[in-house]
């Protein structure tokens, strides 16, 4: 193999599994260390710079970082990254003074944001400090988009939502709430330099052809519409017996909200097997904890009515069969249809995009699925001054993905408004600093804690089920949070190898607790992977390969299960190994300026 090019900013970035897996690439180990040091404000700001909504995401994020956590590979359970983020938000001090302070000198450019959700708000935050005049349009009464209308307040208190939305709106954003945009042509005619569309996936899927759908309409609701109606307090109760159709997180929010609005027998019915439900495992657990039964492998057949009143639904029982390509088919198992009683039904079977307000003759192309054609890197549509992001760009995802889109769309809009090439994007901000404090001393906590993952306490069920606004999760207290931070392996403190210092004493190879380091003859990658002390079978993880050493061998380090304990560097007599902290901040239109709290 050729020596690894560690000057490529993505090499060390990839070693930080959590950060790499995060769509917005939040520097996770950095803020976890700050929490451990009780610097909650700084930890919050690291988050805010990167993911814009630390308090919201610390409660509701889909957490793609956690399955990626290295701890999963060396132990079992990942670090509770998401809940530590919430600790930073809960314990922070005064943060507003650390944020950019409006008013900003104007640059004469004007942009429109359609939709007030996480994607648009991110664009607003990144562009307002650069002097853009930002106009935000949303049909709801306040900003936040689906975070306000669809995430129930027992998961996300309104105060937290308002606080973080206001941090952005206070940057001098011109908001026009309760304003449904009916025509893109009309918006374009108002002379904006660029338009960003962040209207989400606002249409809940229906089952229009299922028998009884029309007749029972009064008792059958679209999940997200019903959740919005609850959030805005139009709906205050539900019948005793409720069926929720669907197996995603919206279905979980529906059933748990129904329990709080008077539903006594709430059942979730889903087509797929339990294990394949789209809902996050913890959401399913929380639902079942609230006495909600989940029926899997049931396909809806009909809504059943008696005297014009909905009495339940019929389902066909199926099983999942997979072909060679792993494609799933649901085949009837031949049992008689099952009848489940219900007074009301909530349908949470998916969401779709909907762009009835975009005229199709503007030069903005739509594809065969009626989705706008959007560049995956620049988020630009075929109409050069219109950009898309969030669920509106490529279909339903999640909040953190919307934030990531927002950052990149803001970069594109900024380049576009300066007449620059959108493909030629600025580099990410990176910094690699030795953590050496003296002989065998590091400025990070290199000890590896063997603790198992700590559990987040919850409020009593008797309390939460009687008050829709009572938050269920209470968050870690400071002591437990500190213990949980110690589980982080500091993967961003990189093992940096300098070949010309190495005397090949083997000390690093001998001491490495997870047998990551091997000195061996160089080969091609597949062969080299086999020849290591423990063969490197996880090909999703890179090998760090040195240049040829004095004896003709190379140093090969398998990044897979490296604990970043620093022992290789401690036992190295010549500092050929060094532990260096790698800070990576993804390209943004506006980097929260120095003194960036942790980088002073």
């Amino acid at each position, binding site marked *: 193999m050729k020596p690894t090019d560690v000057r490529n900013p993505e090499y060390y970035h990839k070693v930080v599994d959590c950060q790499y897996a995060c769509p917005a690439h939040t520097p996770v180990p950095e803020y976890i260390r700050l929490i451990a040091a009780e610097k909650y404000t700084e930890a919050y700001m690291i988050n805010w710079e990167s993911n814009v909504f630390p308090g919201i995401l610390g409660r509701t994020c889909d957490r793609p970082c956690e399955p990626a956590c290295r701890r999963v*590979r*060396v*132990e079992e359970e990942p670090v509770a990254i998401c809940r530590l983020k919430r600790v930073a938000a809960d314990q922070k001090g005064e943060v507003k003074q650390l944020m950019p302070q409006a008013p900003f000198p104007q640059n004469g450019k004007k942009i429109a944001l359609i939709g007030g959700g996480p994607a648009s708000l991110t664009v607003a935050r990144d562009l307002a400090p650069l002097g853009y005049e930002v106009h935000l349009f949303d049909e709801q009464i306040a900003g936040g988009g689906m975070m306000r209308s669809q995430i129930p307040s027992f998961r996300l208190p309104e105060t937290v939502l308002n606080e973080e939305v206001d941090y952005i709106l206070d940057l001098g954003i011109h908001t026009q709430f309760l304003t449904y945009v009916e025509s893109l042509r009309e918006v374009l005619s108002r002379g904006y330099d660029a338009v960003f569309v962040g209207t989400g996936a606002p249409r809940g899927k229906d089952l229009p052809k299922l028998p009884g759908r029309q007749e029972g309409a009064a008792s059958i609701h679209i999940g997200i519409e019903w959740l919005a109606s609850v959030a805005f307090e139009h709906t205050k109760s539900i019948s005793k017996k409720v069926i929720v159709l669907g197996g995603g997180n919206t279905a979980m929010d529906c059933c748990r909200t129904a329990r709080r609005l008077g539903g006594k027998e709430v059942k979730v019915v889903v087509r797929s097997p339990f294990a394949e439900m789209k809902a996050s495992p913890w959401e399913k657990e929380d639902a079942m904890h609230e006495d909600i039964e989940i029926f899997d492998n049931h396909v809806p057949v009909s809504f059943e009515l008696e005297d014009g009143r909905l009495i339940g639904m019929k389902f066909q029982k199926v099983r999942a069969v997979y072909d060679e390509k792993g494609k799933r088919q649901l085949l009837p198992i031949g049992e008689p249809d099952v009848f489940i009683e219900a007074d009301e039904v909530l349908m949470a079977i998916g969401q779709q995009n909907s762009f009835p307000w975009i005229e199709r003759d503007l030069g903005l192309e739509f594809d065969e699925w009626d989705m706008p054609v959007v560049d995956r890197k620049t988020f630009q549509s075929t109409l050069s001054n219109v950009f898309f992001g969030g669920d509106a760009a490529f279909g339903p995802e999640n909040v953190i993905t919307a934030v990531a889109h927002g950052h990149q769309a803001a970069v594109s809009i900024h380049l576009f408004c300066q007449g620059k090439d959108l493909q030629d994007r600025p580099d990410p901000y990176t910094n690699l600093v030795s953590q050496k404090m003296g*002989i*065998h*001393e590091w400025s990070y906590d*290199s*000890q*590896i804690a*063997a603790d198992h993952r700590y559990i987040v306490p919850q409020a009593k069920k008797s309390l939460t089920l009687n008050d829709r606004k009572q938050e269920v999760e209470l968050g870690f207290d400071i002591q437990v949070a500190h213990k949980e931070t110690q589980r982080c392996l500091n993967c961003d403190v990189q093992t940096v190898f300098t070949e010309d210092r190495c*005397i*090949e*004493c*083997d*000390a690093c*190879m*001998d*001491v490495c*607790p*997870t*047998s*990551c380091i091997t000195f061996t003859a160089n080969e091609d990658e597949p062969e080299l992977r086999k020849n290591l002390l*423990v*063969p490197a*079978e996880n090909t999703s993880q890179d090998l760090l390969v040195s240049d040829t050493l*004095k*004896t003709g061998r190379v140093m090969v380090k398998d990044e897979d*299960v490296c*604990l970043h*304990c*620093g*022992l290789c560097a*401690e*036992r*190295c*007599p*010549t500092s050929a190994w060094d532990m260096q902290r790698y800070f990576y901040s993804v390209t943004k239109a506006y980097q929260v300026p120095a003194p960036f709290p942790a980088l002073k």
Partner: protein
Amino acid sequence: MSYLKPLFSHPKLPKNKLGYTLKEYEGSLSTLCAGCGHDSISAAIARACFELSIEPHLVAKISGIGCSSKTPTYFLGNSHGFNSVHGRMPSVATGANMANRDLVYFGVSGDGDSASIGMGQFVHVIRRNLNMVYVVMNNGCYGLTKGQDSATADQGSKNKSGSINPFQAIDLASMAIELGASFVAQSFSGDKQQLIPLLKAAIKHPGFAFLNVISPCVTFNNNPGSTKSYDYVREHIEATSARDLVPGKEEINVSYDAGKSTHVELHDGSEIQLNKLALDWDPEDRNSAVNALQKARAKEEILTGLLYVNTDWKDLHRTLNTTKTPLNQLKENTLCPGVKTLGQINEGFR
């Protein structure tokens, strides 16, 4: 500074026949200087025991005083250990071995512990052919007392403070052959591919197995001009053979060039396979081994590998015709002859 090793290991760490991973053969985190050759030797001993599937509780590590003699803490943490008096390791090893012949005995010593204060003990344990592995971690200096030249420092070698050693070196390997050690090998801490098979063969050898391992002292004797530095040893190393230990009754499918390969059979059926690099050398001929060492010294080369082996000489237990049962397993009915027999014995002396 870290004092504890992390508890985690590689989830796919290979297991030996006993179901143990290498982790079960490791010891505490070393407190020796970073990069010390001794740590490499410790790791090689752990690996040799792992590969031979030796049960850790059937090993005893005995040492004297010095950097080398600290190392038993850093390998085989689940085995017996005795850190004895300076240069007196052979006595303690002899006593332990006499009491229980079922254990594998590692005597770990250094150039000071063996070639200076412990020379008398070293000489006599060889003479007795005690069944043990005697490892000298040889760095040519007194590392624990700031690096003064030791008795194995080569004449003309420069130490860190710049002074040249005026005295002749004691060549422990030649001496061991001369005194009749039944297994003598020399190696380098920085060459585990050679060291591990040598250690395995030494463990299997039924008698006194001596390994002189050059082990650079990174702190006091790794400077230019030193003949025990990583660079010097790598430049001047010469191997007698490429070797491997084939454990008993396993089929051998290795073919060597005719005239170049040889093998030595051990009593348990294991074989030491040697792919000879030095053609005029016979591992079972003392003269040829001494000659090879002298020739290498004349050429300023460091001859490594298996130098001499003799599997016919009786070890101490066979010489003394001792009981085959470890003393701790002997019961009263065996140990106490009874009044009648005692009377007869006493009668014999009258």
